[in-house]
């Protein structure tokens, strides 16, 4: 299992909105060691999603350096970024973002297809993954036929099915009731333990803090002083 260290140095991302520059992320320098269960806190608009997007390689920094497992993301070509995402990253979005026309099984199989696996092989592996997360009886259902918590577990299965070294979750429990959120959190921390994957989670949810190995707080795009850990 590859383990991934994330290093950001003076990471900045500005958006142009009309004539003004919006500084979504400003001069952020952090290090996240391999197998960490890192939490990014901060109020709405503080830049949490922006940071995750950069780490996940679906967006590019305006300036600064960002390396993941020795790969300088800010220097990668589009094609290299594609393969970085394919090989290293699993995404878990707030609104699960499952494809509505595919079954749970097919949704989970997608990242394997992207890696070039055959559908037969991908389905098999996706089925095992879903069963692992307690959804063995739901494989043929489409997202609309699942509860919010189940959908998020399917999304989690999709994020981890390729055994990525890095799993990025943006408000993974934001849309769920407490109980379902608890289930998803438990699954995430056990995956963190079992797979040794690095988790970076953006959240408002203070419950997560107790499980975190690292906590970062953003405010107006800047990194707040380190939170004292109990």
């Amino acid at each position, binding site marked *: 299992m590859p383990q991934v260290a994330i290093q950001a140095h003076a990471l900045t991302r500005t958006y142009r909105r009309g004539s003004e520059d919006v500084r979504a992320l400003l001069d952020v320098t952090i290090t996240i060691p391999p197998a960490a269960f890192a939490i990014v806190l901060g109020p709405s608009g503080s830049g949490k999603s922006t940071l995750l*997007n950069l780490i996940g390689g679906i967006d590019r920094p305006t300036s600064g350096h960002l390396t993941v497992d020795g790969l300088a993301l800010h220097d990668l070509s589009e094609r290299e970024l*594609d393969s970085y995402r394919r090989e290293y990253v699993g*995404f878990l*979005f*707030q609104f699960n973002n499952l494809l509505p026309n595919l079954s749970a099984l097919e949704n989970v199989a997608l990242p394997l*297809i992207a890696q070039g696996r055959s559908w037969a092989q991908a389905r098999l592996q996706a089925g095992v993954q879903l069963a692992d997360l307690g959804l063995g009886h739901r494989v043929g259902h489409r997202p609309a036929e699942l509860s919010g918590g189940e959908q998020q577990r399917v999304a989690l299965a999709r994020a981890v099915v390729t055994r990525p070294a890095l799993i990025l979750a943006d408000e993974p429990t934001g849309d769920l009731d407490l109980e379902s959120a608890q289930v998803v959190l438990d699954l995430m921390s056990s995956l963190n333990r079992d797979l040794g994957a690095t988790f970076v989670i953006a959240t408002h949810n203070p419950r997560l803090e107790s499980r975190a190995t690292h906590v970062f707080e953003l405010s107006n795009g800047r990194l707040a002083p380190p939170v004292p850990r109990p």
Partner: protein
Amino acid sequence: MIHLALQDLRHDRLTFGFSVLGLGILVFAFLLLIPLSLAVTRLGEAGGLPQNLILVEQNVLQPELSRVPPGLAGSVSAILGERLERLDPVIFRILRVEDHPIQLRGVAPEAWTTTFQLQLVEGTWSSAASEIVIGQLAAQGGGWRTGSEINIYGRPFRVAGIADGPGTKTQTIWMSYAAARALFGDDQGAQLLVAHLRPSADPLASRQDLEDGLRSIGAPFDAYFEDALLRQYGAALNDLRLLSLVTASIAFVAVTLGAHNLAWLAAEERQRMLGVLRAIGFDRRDVARYLALRAGMITVSAYLLALAAAVVFIRLGLSAETFTVGGTQTDLSLSPGMAVLGLLLACAASLAGTWLSVSRVLTASPSGLLGRGPGATFA
């Protein structure tokens, strides 16, 4: 990606159905209009016999209303002199015979093989007054054969044989001049005079001399070549052809735009989904392939559906692929080549549509795609 596109369409049958139907109707119109304009074109080009000059009364719109006075033949012979091989009066009618629009020509049987260059396809030339010879198109159109009894203008006739000749694009029944005269009575006489020129005669100069000569004696007659008569007779057909070509072009543009719009819509409504695909690790080429396949499947389905509908329509609706305008028959058919060409064009249109409409989506960053639309994830 094929699987993804297939699943996408399979689970979203309503969208798929309406897309196919919408595009299919346009393709259907296109498929019908193209052969129609080709058919009308052929009709206008029905070849004639350059050595035959046809004399018709001036200012009559339909040849069957023309009337040839008794003295005209003598004048024509005098004007053309040596250049004339044969001169025959023709009784010409357009009638419904057992519900088929038919051109009936009553002309001396000696002229059939010479002036009109008919050749027997089966049976014999008619030997009795109650016998007729029918053209091949008439045989097909009416379902008649050698030996069939046909009721014409209230009297029974027997088909002695089936004949075919150059320039015959009409469903024609041939009978002797005498038989036609007996059938229709004396009062209207012949409608046309057909002057068959010797091969050595110059058709254009002969026609000029004939018209000049007739004018100088005050005979109100025009001389046409056979095909020119046909063309004049079907003057409206040219407008019809232009019209159907214009409509076919519009239908084709509509097919192109329709395919383009489908592709564009698919890309627009799926921005988030495409963003998810990119985030998951699919690259631009995968996403482009998915969109192109999806558009292609809709286009091919719509095209095949429309093709099937068009073939059924042409076969059933227009009786055995024949299409008749005032007794003049032409082919209305979809050749396989045309069908394949149409399919290729439609696919090209759909691919071009995909390419045009998704290039923006393809160059956007995945996070940009995810951030758009309702429920934007990372916003």
